[in-house]
């Protein structure tokens, strides 16, 4: 067991830290620390330009293989990149769905033609992606997708009709990966297809969803015979679930340490407020601040376990508990922030509804324990897969 990084990795750390210091300035100064969760709709043109700036420095898609323009960076180096990026206040990445989800899926399951066509745009920070999974009746029960894809022999195209929901960045994206039912008589995870769909077409309309924060990061996306060429289905018709589930395995926790750096920034802000307004003298608040800190330290150690690959042959329980742990921790942090602020927590920066950073965090964290698998779904997964308890009966 060893905690420190190798000398070579530390050099890599210096390289990215130096590049960020040299580049995240000037016109980009204003987007420092912006565009994260709860703020994703802000500074879109500037953050798009930042994606291209990252590309010129060779800092997009660093985990991709060299032959596709990546650096083939090791897990450690990807961790370091995310950590330094967050430390420097790097803005929320508009390109992250393409880089971490669409790209790796195409690399793993896509055709040569799909790789040639889609990967360069992601790499260069020119083409952004959104994810078309959830539907009004397919939330936790993702396999209950109703959106249909029908193949039209005449035009050699798929025609997609239905509705997706909770689609972040749909307005800003050029492409969407969509799971839709290729077999109209199928149910559940069988009979689905995985499609790469251009957003700029008459068959697609995007409607923003106003959230409890008053802002609109998420959208509804309506498909009315939206077209997708025959060559833009990943895998065979009917194999969409396999592709979609394979995608979930790509994350591997490399971004978790960067996420924790953002959490640390929020935590530090709360500590600063507590010291200033005297809440730091309240014994109950002191306990909660210390408890939040304990959670942060444990998350970091837990991520290091995930990244180190765990014990030989053992199921990675530390990976299975991670979402439930951080989401619950972050939601509690939001509450703590408001309690530290006291009556000031109610007072907005400006009207009509301009939340400050901690207020926005407080409200936004209510979604953390819902999206990407609710806490309840996470507990089912842990009980069934990690502890071997009986599966829930299905209707």
């Amino acid at each position: 067991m060893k905690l420190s990084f190798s000398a070579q990795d530390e050099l890599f750390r210096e390289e990215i830290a130096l590049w960020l210091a040299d580049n995240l300035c000037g016109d980009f100064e204003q987007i420092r620390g912006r565009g994260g969760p709860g703020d994703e709709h802000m500074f879109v043109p500037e953050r798009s330009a930042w994606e291209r700036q990252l590309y010129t420095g060779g800092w997009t898609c660093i985990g991709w293989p060299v032959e596709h323009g990546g650096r083939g960076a090791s897990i450690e180096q990807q961790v370091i990149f995310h950590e330094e990026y967050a430390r420097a206040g790097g803005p929320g990445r508009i390109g992250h769905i393409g880089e971490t989800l669409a790209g790796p899926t195409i690399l793993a399951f896509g055709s040569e033609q799909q790789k040639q066509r889609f990967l360069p745009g992601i790499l260069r920070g020119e083409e952004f992606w959104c994810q078309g999974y959830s539907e009004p009746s397919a939330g936790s029960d993702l396999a209950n997708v109703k959106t249909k894809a029908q193949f039209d022999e005449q035009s050699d195209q798929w025609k997609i009709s239905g509705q997706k929901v909770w689609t972040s960045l749909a307005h800003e994206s050029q492409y969407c990966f969509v799971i839709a039912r290729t077999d109209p008589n199928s149910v559940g995870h069988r009979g689905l297809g995985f499609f790469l769909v251009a957003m700029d077409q008459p068959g697609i309309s995007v409607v923003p969803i106003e959230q409890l924060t008053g802002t609109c990061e998420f959208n509804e996306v309506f498909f009315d015979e939206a077209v997708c060429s025959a060559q833009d289905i990943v895998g065979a018709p009917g194999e969409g679930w396999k592709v979609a589930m394979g995608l979930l395995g790509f994350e591997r926790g490399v971004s978790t340490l960067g996420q924790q750096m953002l959490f640390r920034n929020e935590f530090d802000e709360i500590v600063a407020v507590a010291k200033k307004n005297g809440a730091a003298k309240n014994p109950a608040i002191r306990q909660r601040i210390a408890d939040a800190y304990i959670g942060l330290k444990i998350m970091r150690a837990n991520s290091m376990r995930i990244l180190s690959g765990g014990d030989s042959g053992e199921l990675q329980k530390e990976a299975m508990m991670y979402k439930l742990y951080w989401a619950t921790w972050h939601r509690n942090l939001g509450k703590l922030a408001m309690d530290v602020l006291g009556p000031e927590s109610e007072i907005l920066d400006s009207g009509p509804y301009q939340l400050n950073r901690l207020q926005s965090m407080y409200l936004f964290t209510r979604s953390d324990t819902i999206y990407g698998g609710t806490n309840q779904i996470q507990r089912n997964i842990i009980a069934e897969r990690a502890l071997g308890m009986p599966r829930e009966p299905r209707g």
Partner: protein
Amino acid sequence: MDFKFTEEQEMIRDTAQAFLAEVSTSAAVRAAMATELGYDPALWSRITGEMFWQAIHIPEQYGGMGLGYVELVAMLEQMGRYLLCAPFYSTVCLATNALLIAGTEEQKERYLPQIVGGTTATLAYTGNSGGWDASAVELICLADGEGFTLNGSCRYIPDGHSAQLLVVAAREQHSVGEQGISLFVLAPDTAGITRRWLPTMDQTRKQAELQFDNVSVTASAVMRSPGEAWPLLATIIDLATVAVAADQLGGSQQALDSTVQYLQERVQFGRVIASYQAVKHKAADMMVKVEASRSAVYYAACIADETLQNSALGVELPEAASVAKAYCSDAYFHNAGTGIQLHGGVGFTAEYDIQLYFKRAKSTETFLGDGAFHRERLARQLLDGETAA
């Protein structure tokens, strides 16, 4: 960075697990805990003679194995899991650490080989106040020529009634807090020492009270930094704190495992109760606490290794120890308590072992400071600009 057990460390853990599964059965634990001594001397002989566990992190120059804290923690986790009744914790995690951190070269050369040879030992630093920081030291030492005279009492001392060697902390008269503290190593049969076993709610961990009446100790008994030994004692306590957390981790794990096993067997309303979501979600929460405990303990063990090697990362020890102890204390109590609830009626019987874990959870939670104590220690560091002490 490679934050997982090496093959050798996995082997040490697996060997400990297999041995304890054989010798620290429910029946063996119940037999040992019913005695005042608290352990089976024959088993202690096997542990020290065959397994050589007491020597794990003693340097080779003193006859030890020269391994590190990660290896020690890997074994402690299994001891917690199997509720081992033995003077291992007191001897290795209290007294041996005290000798390693605060012993003079002569003391190390004299006592560490004795410990390797199977001598039991403990550390006595707490008085009657119920605290665990520097102010807990109440024993008074008066300079007496080259040596000292000790007066007062110590309480809550693990295996204090049976240990064959004592390390004690005492303070100068009228000194307060971190000032005036000295450490001594002495034989328990030194004239003026009276030892009394304290019956305990958790019978798997024995405690004692030590009375000192004009106990004369020679200069050779005085450990390093007399009068200024608090920083050394603080490190000893932090190392011991990490070790308790490892025991708690093992206990949390077993509370979960035995509960899940029961849930898979018990049938109500025509199905195993493990199939009910209300039950599954409780079990899932227990696993989250176990895995988070594991991350905290292994991290703290790595930091403890750095401390023992005097490397820069070692400065994190007070923080890492408090993180681990605060979390693992609450997690173990939660898991053992939830374990009883999920066992239903049988969880309340003496027959099922979950009650033993529930009791050990509470006794280890209290020992060396509970969650609130360690959170306040962290709060001082975070909010008052102090280093955790």
